[in-house]
């Protein structure tokens, strides 16, 4: 059995979303089984199946956030405070 990751998308602007995983012997069997397992209640109009073996998986260290980079996070508080001051003085 192979493991497939299932993605569904509704027609329109929504992106494909991961909805779960499933097992099937191969792609030919995976498609109808995914349809009945994940899309039988019309949860999506488009479906992607990705063999888990084909995923490129990043090492968690590679994407671990560096907490010491406040310059990358603008919470807007200082701008908001300045604008508030400006409004008060005019």
């Amino acid at each position, binding site marked *: *059995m192979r493991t497939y990751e299932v993605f569904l998308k509704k027609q329109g602007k929504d992106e494909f979303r991961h909805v779960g995983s*499933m*097992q*099937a012997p191969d792609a*030919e*069997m995976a498609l*109808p*089984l*995914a*349809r*009945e*397992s994940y899309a*039988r209640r019309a949860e999506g109009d488009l479906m992607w199946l990705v063999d888990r073996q084909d995923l490129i998986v990043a090492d968690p260290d590679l994407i671990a956030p560096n907490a010491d980079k406040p310059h990358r996070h603008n919470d807007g508080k200082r701008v908001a405070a300045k604008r508030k001051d400006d409004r008060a003085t005019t």
Partner: protein
Amino acid sequence: MTSNLSPGSAEWVLAFADDEHMIGARHAAWIGLGPFLEEDLAFCSIAQDELGHAIALYDYVTDDLDRFALLRDPSAYRSAWLCELPCDHWDQALVRHWLYDQAEALRWEAVAGSSVDALRDLAARAEREERFHRDHAELYLRRISEGHQDGRDRIEAAVDALLPFACGLWEPVAGEPEALADGVVTLGSEALAEQWTTAIQSELSAWGYEIEWPEAVIGQDQRRARSVEFAALQASLQEVISIDPDATW
């Protein structure tokens, strides 16, 4: 909604509805028992589609769905024995699914040009689902047939055992001539049986089976007679409703 179908047309629709109900119930019994989780879900999803068709078809013959579907006298059912059989081995359930869905497609074709508008729409809707049911059955049977001898032997034995019942699907109800005269149905059982036989035989031969076609079809007195398995099936279907037959769901 009950419509103004003639008794003959109503009987034709009833037989179709009862077949869908019984096959749906029998397929659904596989929930939790399918060979692996994904197939378990797929087969029971197919069962739900068939029950959905049964509900839509019963709508033409009753206003009291649950009690009508579950509590009739057995002689008032028109289900085919193929649909009533337990088929409690997976190979049999799979082969029946294929034999039945090949026939079901043709029966929807028989009402695709019906004089009843809503039946035509229902046929179109059902066919969109049935395409996947047939693909599902064929996918398994083809792949099993390409595999080990053990699988082939099981499929062959199941086909042998079920064909006489499957051919019995085409024993017409007494009302069929009237249904045809009304234009509610545009193809008779004989024509459908011929198309079905050709389709079944050509797939069997494509998969490399040499099956002897049954000489005797199992007759059911124009579908008025129930199989010996029916009583137990109906009793199991009645388990919930009989707790409180007047409950509203």
